[in-house]
């Protein structure tokens, strides 16, 4: 069981699609605003994948592959064999031999020009696809790296979990900071944060045992008020807690407003 109104039991049944419609909607709605439940749901899905993979292995008959690939090929776009361009290149029989010869040369030149243009276009398309693929690959690598760090933090036994709560009675915004001094990383998962004007952003602070707060990063929540911030390299200081303030978008060297959320590491 977790501390939410959604239990881990219900999350498990949700992942299996075994809840009735009302409960399914309730869990689905909650997931929209809860980072930690979404994270647990991913873990449950991974457990379920392992369970699914225990099914006895059987090979499908080859006809499924043949049918599937035939269908895929039917859906592909192919250049028609007899294109209008080719038909238009046929000389009319009532032209004189001289004019026909000249026309043939002109057609040949035209075809060469067309082929040249087609190859240039093909080259340009390939270059574009290559650049796109390289960009996607880099983005994918960055996402994988972040995911690996997040996973290491979540699985770390030495990482400290600190829940940041509002100081006022109203308890809607919340966040959890996971801090590993050993790994030099800090992960913040927040939900129900209020949206900010364009020129403002949230700033995360490390509160050291001695000295002024140290900025750990800036972020803006998504449309649902959720946010996740991974700080890959934290200063090597002994922290007593963490705080979240609203600052100008470019960040502040020191907090300029009262903390929205604050949490202390239990001693």
């Amino acid at each position, binding site marked *: 069981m977790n501390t939410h109104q959604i*239990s*881990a*039991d*219900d999350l*498990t*049944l949700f992942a*299996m*699609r*075994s*809840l*009735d419609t009302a409960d399914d909607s309730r869990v689905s709605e909650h997931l929209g605003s809860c980072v930690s439940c979404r994270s647990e*749901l*991913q*873990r*449950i*899905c*991974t*457990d*379920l*994948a*392992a*369970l*699914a*993979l*225990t*099914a*006895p*292995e*059987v*090979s*499908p*008959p080859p*006809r*499924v*592959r043949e*049918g*599937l*690939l035939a*269908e*895929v*090929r039917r859906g*592909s776009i192919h250049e028609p064999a007899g294109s209008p361009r080719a038909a238009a290149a046929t000389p009319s029989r009532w032209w004189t031999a001289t004019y026909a010869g000249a026309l043939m040369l002109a057609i040949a030149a035209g075809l060469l020009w067309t082929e040249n243009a087609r190859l240039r276009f093909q080259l340009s398309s390939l270059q574009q*696809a290559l650049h796109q*693929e390289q960009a*996607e*690959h880099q983005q*994918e690598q960055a*996402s*994988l790296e972040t*995911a*690996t760090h997040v*996973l290491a933090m979540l699985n770390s036994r030495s990482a400290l979990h600190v829940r940041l709560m509002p100081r006022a009675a109203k308890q809607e915004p919340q966040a959890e900071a996971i801090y590993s001094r050993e790994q030099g990383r800090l992960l913040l998962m927040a939900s129900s944060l209020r949206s900010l004007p364009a020129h403002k952003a949230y700033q995360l602070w490390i509160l050291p045992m001695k000295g002024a707060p140290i900025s750990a990063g800036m972020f803006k929540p998504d449309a649902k008020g959720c946010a996740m911030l991974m700080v890959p390299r934290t200063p090597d200081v002994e922290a007593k807690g963490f705080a979240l303030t609203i600052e100008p978008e470019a960040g502040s060297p020191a907090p300029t407003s009262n903390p929205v959320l604050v949490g202390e590491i239990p001693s």
Partner: protein
Amino acid sequence: MATAPNSELRRRAASSASALAKESDYRLVTRIVHRDEDAFGAIYDRYSRVVYSVVLHVVRDAAVAEDVLHDIFLNLWRSPQQFDGARGKLAPWLAVVARNRAIDWLRKQHPQEDLSEVQLVADEDLAGEVERKSAIDRVRTVLNALPEKQRVALELAFFRGLTHADIAAQEGVPLGTIKTRIRTALLSIRRALER
């Protein structure tokens, strides 16, 4: 003499297939996005057995399993971007999709699930074939060692597609008991994966 070019073509085709077989899932899916039929064939060859096995285990009808297998891969061809490589590996993702599609068929529902909703953590144990086989062996061992009531509840919910209310009625126990049995059994699987 006429067989020489054919033999050359066969050699090239075999060489191309061999190169594709070494490509990563991510590269192959990217090529599918760009409508590469050979890459699609390579992904099918790599994972159709996994998908078919899961579907067949749920629906227990070879003809139905073939249809569901066909639909799953056709969906992958049409919308390959629904697989998010940063959020898990292809084999476990396809296994969950296969199970859900098969359950849809059991319940006679039209599939409505958006495939991108199935998101996993990037578990390396389920990524490569060798690691996957080792992880599956550990999970099978844990399943066999589970208390009978937990194993039955998990089996009925996951592979038979029964709701927890159905299982509670069938077993004659409160809803909460069934929830706990399923959750506890699943946590045992998680521990087996973490070993």
